[in-house]
């Protein structure tokens, strides 16, 4: 069994675990929440697909070109962990303030994962994207510093989309 399949199965297992925890913790509409967040991330991934490549995963893990539902699940897990940590630690904060903490948690969790995916060759950036990069790397890694700016940008658009849809469904 290759390490890739272990990674894929690991992500799926963690996603199921997260969904189960949401259900157990009496999270509001856990299955719908999971589906809405999955769709939110997937839409974003399809739109931004020409900018990156998800390599090396098994054929069944891809939906469209190199958009992978396993990677989408990975994002969903990270978003829910960020929501959980912030909501648990600061339950009384206003939504506007929580938003910034969600972005901070998302960035702190995702940055090392992105660095690992890049060095493992699973993630690759397209040439049109690398051309716009400064060339500055995150210290002690070969990952571009722009990751630290891009992750909160993704969160800043996906989180409102998810939260607004959850208010409406």
């Amino acid at each position, binding site marked *: 069994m290759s390490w890739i399949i272990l990674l894929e199965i690991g992500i799926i297992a963690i996603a199921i675990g997260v969904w189960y925890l949401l259900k157990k913790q009496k999270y509001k509409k856990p299955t719908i929440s999971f589906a809405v967040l999955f769709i939110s991330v997937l839409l974003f991934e399809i*739109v931004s697909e020409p*900018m990156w490549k998800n390599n090396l995963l098994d054929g069944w893990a891809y939906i469209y070109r190199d958009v992978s539902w396993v990677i989408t699940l990975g994002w969903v897990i990270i978003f829910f962990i960020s929501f959980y940590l912030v909501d648990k630690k600061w339950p009384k904060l206003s*939504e*506007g303030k929580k938003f910034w903490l969600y972005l901070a948690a998302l960035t702190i969790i995702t940055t090392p994962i992105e660095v690992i995916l890049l060095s493992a060759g699973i993630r690759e950036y397209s040439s049109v994207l690398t051309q716009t990069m400064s060339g500055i790397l995150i210290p002690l890694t070969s990952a571009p510093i722009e990751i630290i700016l891009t992750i909160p940008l993704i969160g800043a658009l996906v989180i*409102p989309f998810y939260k607004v849809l959850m208010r*409406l469904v």
Partner: protein
Amino acid sequence: MAVFELSVIVISIAFLLLTHKLYKSIWKKYGIIFCGVLLFEYFTQALWINKGLEAWSYLYLDVNWIITLGWSTIIIVCMTLVNAYANNAGNLAKLLYYIISVSIVGIIAEQVVLGLGIREYSSAVLEVLSGTKMGIVPIEALYYIPTFMALVIAFVIYWMPAAAARKSR
């Protein structure tokens, strides 16, 4: 010649001046829309090329605040019209009306900027396009523009209550 740039500025200011007495929060809403569009444009700037505009209208690489202003005005005009003519619709229906109306105008606007030679797609985008077109706009705009708009409109809906609450404090 800055005809395009000046036209966008004049149309945007005219709309805001005409409506600001009817809708007290229009400037705030416009500011939030502008931020949402700018975030998205910055994030996806590797995918398109905005060229031929005056140097003063560029913010970073080819991210252009006139284009951002243009998108923001399209969004606020459509949202205002939907609010005026479908005020009794449910929130989910309204969200759909926003997305549909902005997308229709957005596709026409894309046709205009492509025709004027202001917009071009990067090589990474050209690689994934099917080649099928509506006029001169790639058919993929039917997916891309509504998705882009859905993310930005959700961003506006998410931030509007927070902005209103801040004012009432």
